[in-house]
């Protein structure tokens, strides 16, 4: 299963959702944000090297725990040197080797958002309660529809008391999982840990578990 975590607007928590979703699905998370990588990385081959044909995708995967990850380089020169379309075969190769893949997509609506949606079986849309984030999510949902990536779930991230999940579900046309605005989420991400490992039993951990369960239910149920 290939799952694209996308959202349109920057800063809504796509990387956090992708990382925690991968942790709960026991999937490999691919940092597809070619220009502004966000997930933890170390030395060694990365997605820039893979896209430029200098490394094998499997060779670039850092196996967990806590989460297996194919990191992305952080230089603009590296982002420019690769062939973006090679992202498709790279993601497929990781899926063949590891099973499930979660792709952390960048903000925007360009091909680096479209290519993960193109190769994905389904997508998860991440938004915050803000109007601008929901508007951008609507735009990405259209793109996902055109590229045949079914919408498995909407994540309403950093939801405070004023958030209205029902309104977001109605606007985006899919069930919503709410992730609370809780410091444990940012703390865990900063520490390079999934929330359920750093702060098990918290509402945020429960939210990510329930998201993974819902995605699994939708995607496994619809697989050929």
């Amino acid at each position, binding site marked *: 299963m290939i799952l694209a975590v996308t959202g349109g607007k920057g800063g809504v928590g796509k990387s956090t959702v992708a990382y925690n979703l991968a942790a709960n699905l026991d999937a490999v998370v691919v940092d597809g944000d*070619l*220009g502004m990588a966000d997930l933890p990385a170390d030395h060694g081959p990365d997605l*820039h*090297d893979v896209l*430029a044909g*200098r490394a094998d995708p499997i060779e670039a995967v850092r196996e967990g725990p806590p989460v297996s990850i194919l990191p992305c*380089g*952080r*230089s*603009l*020169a*590296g*982002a*420019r*040197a*690769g062939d*973006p*379309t090679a*992202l*498709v075969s790279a993601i497929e190769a990781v899926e063949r080797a590891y099973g499930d893949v979660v792709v952390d997509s*960048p903000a*925007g*609506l*360009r*091909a*680096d*958002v*479209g*290519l993960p949606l*193109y*190769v994905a079986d389904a997508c998860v849309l991440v938004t915050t309660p803000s109007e601008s984030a929901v508007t951008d999510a609507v735009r990405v949902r*259209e*793109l996902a*529809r*055109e*590229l*045949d990536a*079914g919408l498995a779930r909407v994540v309403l991230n950093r939801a405070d008391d004023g958030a209205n999940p029902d309104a977001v579900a109605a606007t985006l046309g899919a069930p919503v999982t709410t992730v609370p605005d809780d410091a444990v989420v940012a703390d865990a991400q900063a520490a390079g840990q999934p929330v359920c490992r750093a702060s098990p039993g918290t509402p945020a951990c429960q939210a990510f578990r329930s998201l993974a369960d819902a995605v699994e239910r939708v995607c496994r149920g*619809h697989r*050929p």
Partner: protein
Amino acid sequence: MVSVDASATAIDGVTLVTVSLDSDGPARRVRVEQRLDGPVWPPRCEGEPERGWDESGYEGVVPADGRLALGYATPAPPAQQPVAVEEREVVPDAEDAAGEDATAVLQRLGDPSPPRDGVPAPEATVRADPRPDCDTLPAAEETPDDPGHVPSPEHPAGDESTDQTVPDRRVGSTNPVTDWLDGVEERVTTLERLDAVETVPEATTALQSTGGLAAGRRAARACAADRRRLLSVADRARRLADRIEATDPPLSSLERLT
């Protein structure tokens, strides 16, 4: 053969119909006809029904050994079999609706790579760029003659915290120290040629071949800076060499201890 899985669910007075068509053979055109007693409210894009939809249903292609998933709404009450599916002709591969590939996605949505002018990279990287931008052709080629861009011994290329001057191993860049020395050599050669002239015709020829008087002045200024840096590098190189000479680690003894 196309198998059909369809369902209708009433939500808030509207019936949502989902249809899944699976083919275990070649790509085939199908017609999906609404059987519920009401109009079809098709999915829309920019306010217009999406391709293949009309007021009574949908016509499209189920990909070879693949799946076509559809969904629409209707005000009609739900029923057991919301749609009727009629299989039509086999479609050649080229007409397969699912024909968009990764390259087409890239062309449609635009290359996400940062523009070349947005990439602060050493000249070697610029030269090695495999995908030059047609709209950014006048790129930064002036760096070799600019003494401000050469690595200084106090701040060699690899010392800087940003990746602006970090040699990019990924795009086949050469060694920045070698690049710098090559640049110095070029500037010194220019200066020597200007220095060697004794007659007016020789001076004219030399100025023409080195790019004129302004270029000569630039080379002279750059060489003055080069000289300071070269001496500083030489001094540091000598001190490092002396330190190397002063060391004699007892490696064989250390080997026995571990």
